[in-house]
């Protein structure tokens, strides 16, 4: 009986913690469908006007387009660089060198974002990169790179290096081996790294606030300035769409890698 009780208590604790973790995220969804002109919770009536407002307002749609563009470019650059870095780290014969380089590569994940933001801002002002597309991609890539390195390193950890020896004996050079043997087998890690990189860029706000310009505003920056100026529920509509997009991307990526693993 007491074992049953303990079990029930464990379940209850689990559910409470889960609710605590997810609730703030879920609160956003009804907020976007409110019929009031302010962010009141719980909503007293329902409407889709804020979604209409989002897609009717060029400030919001431009911000969304900018975020998508920057995110895709960051995902591409960070995935190429991060995969190359992870591969290099896994083959570095000097363990000390590899460990030091890994810490350096993962530093952006640990260093407070505000510190990175100040540094980036100072340098970008000097080279007039602030507010430019190249500037956003460069700054976000720094922040996204660690996620690619971590996820590709994990895939390389389970990769059988002897397959590369076999490929060499069969006449494949280093590049051919990487392209035809190594890359396809670490692809789940590369894909999830790319998704993480995209999501990192897509919801990045601290650095973006520093380097933004009227010419280039990303969605999180637009949301932040919207909430500081007025309490417009369009903000909640935007948040809901970000939530939906990232959820689809991440679960899609997980499902993809699970399917690949099953095929083997």
């Amino acid at each position, binding site marked *: 009986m007491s074992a049953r009780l303990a079990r029930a208590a464990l379940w209850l604790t689990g559910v409470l913690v889960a609710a605590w973790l997810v609730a703030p995220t879920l609160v956003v969804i009804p907020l976007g469908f409110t019929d009031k002109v302010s962010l009141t919770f719980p909503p007293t009536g329902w409407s889709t006007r804020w979604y209409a407002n989002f897609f009717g307002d060029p400030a919001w749609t431009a911000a969304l387009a900018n975020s998508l563009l920057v995110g895709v470019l960051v995902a591409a650059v960070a995935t190429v660089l991060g995969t190359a870095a992870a591969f290099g780290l896994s083959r570095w014969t000097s363990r000390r060198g590899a460990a030091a380089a890994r810490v350096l590569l993962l530093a952006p994940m640990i260093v407070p974002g505000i510190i990175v933001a100040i540094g980036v801002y100072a340098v970008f002002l000097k080279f007039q990169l602030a507010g430019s597309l190249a500037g956003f991609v460069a700054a976000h890539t720094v922040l996204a790179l660690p996620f690619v390195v971590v996820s590709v390193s994990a895939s390389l950890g389970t990769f059988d290096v002897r397959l590369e020896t076999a490929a*060499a*004996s*069969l006449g*494949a*050079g280093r590049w051919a081996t990487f392209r*035809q043997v190594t890359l396809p087998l670490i692809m789940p890690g590369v894909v999830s790294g790319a998704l993480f990189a995209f999501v990192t860029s897509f919801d990045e706000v601290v650095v973006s606030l520093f380097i933004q310009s009227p010419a280039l505003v990303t969605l999180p920056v637009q949301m932040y300035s919207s909430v500081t100026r007025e309490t417009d529920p369009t903000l909640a509509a935007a948040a809901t769409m970000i939530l939906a997009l990232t959820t689809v991307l991440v679960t899609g990526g997980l499902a993809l890698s699970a399917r690949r693993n099953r095929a083997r």
Partner: protein
Amino acid sequence: MPVDRPAGGTAQTAASTYPPVAAPAAAPAIRGARIDLRGMTKRFGASVAVDDVTLTVEPGEFMTFLGPSGSGKTTTLNMIAGFTDISAGALEIDERPVGGVPAHKRDIGVVFQHYALFPHMTVEENIAFPLRQRRVPKAERRRLVAAALETVQLPGHAARYPSELSGGQQQRVALARAIVFSPRVLLMDEPLGALDRKLREFLQLEIKRIHREVGSTFVFVTHDQEEALILSDRIAVFNNAGIEQVGTAHELYERPATLFVASFLGESTILRGTASPDGGGSTLAGDGFVVRAPGRLEGGRTDAALVVRPERLRLTPDAPASASGDASGGNAVPVTVVEEIYLGAARKLEVILPGGARGLVREQAGALSGLRAGDRATLRWHPEDGVLLPDDPTIERIFT
């Protein structure tokens, strides 16, 4: 590019008939390469993995590197394949130095113990991989893959993934992949080590047949002496980073050059003592026995080991006339039987020699002595059946 093979398929004819070694049904598809190892050495830091190995593998030969783990046989193979660079010495294939040629340009097939099949490719894609690297046209690729699958007797499995195959089937695919581009040298690193005994024995015969059909020079690494005896034209016995002896199975078994070879390859009884010249041969005086042996030790050495194979020994229940021989000139040593091992067609008797060392006698089913464990008996053999070798104190016991 040496990817051509006669279209008629030596594979089909030979696969079904198993021609005897001496008279192959069809000429091999290609000519094997000659491999010359000249003073090849591999150092890893301060330790020497392979020390000054010199050996010639003849074109089309089946050469086995036999030795315990850590004896340098796999490192030597890796140097031939190009996976490991050579610290000193030279490697030539068909009289062309290849020491500096990267592995992927050596045109050498390799079969690994762990198969090393590409898990994301089907059987067909795996076997076509070396052909794709050589830019063989698609139609030709299909034909060669089909022929290779035929050779390893796995037709109809082309569309499967490696994970859907058994270990034995995976190793056949690995073999097909290694021979499909008709390399003139095929290296095999303990390819059957991960398989169970029945399958191993079956695949040994398969590998022997494929060697005959393909005609490449095979270098096969194993620590299993039985496997070496079954497969090889010649065997190089490795020990302590070097080669102890190279020869046919018969030569190594009947005329081992060192005590290590005698003890590693096959079973034997080892009698240790002091050798002194006696006519054309020697006399060996040990703890509780004096026997005669053929030949003499070189360089005036006297600490000797006499090796006699189990089937050359006989046991009789009677006591010897003396501890040094019998009337007919044979050797005779008093022993005690301690163990009988029933083998069906034969039985093995383990005996204790006067000095306490163990000996092994093999009796065919038709010629049993009737002795049992605990009996006292006389161990007899013809002096010419022993092999007198310099003693090697590192060799302690009979390998079985």
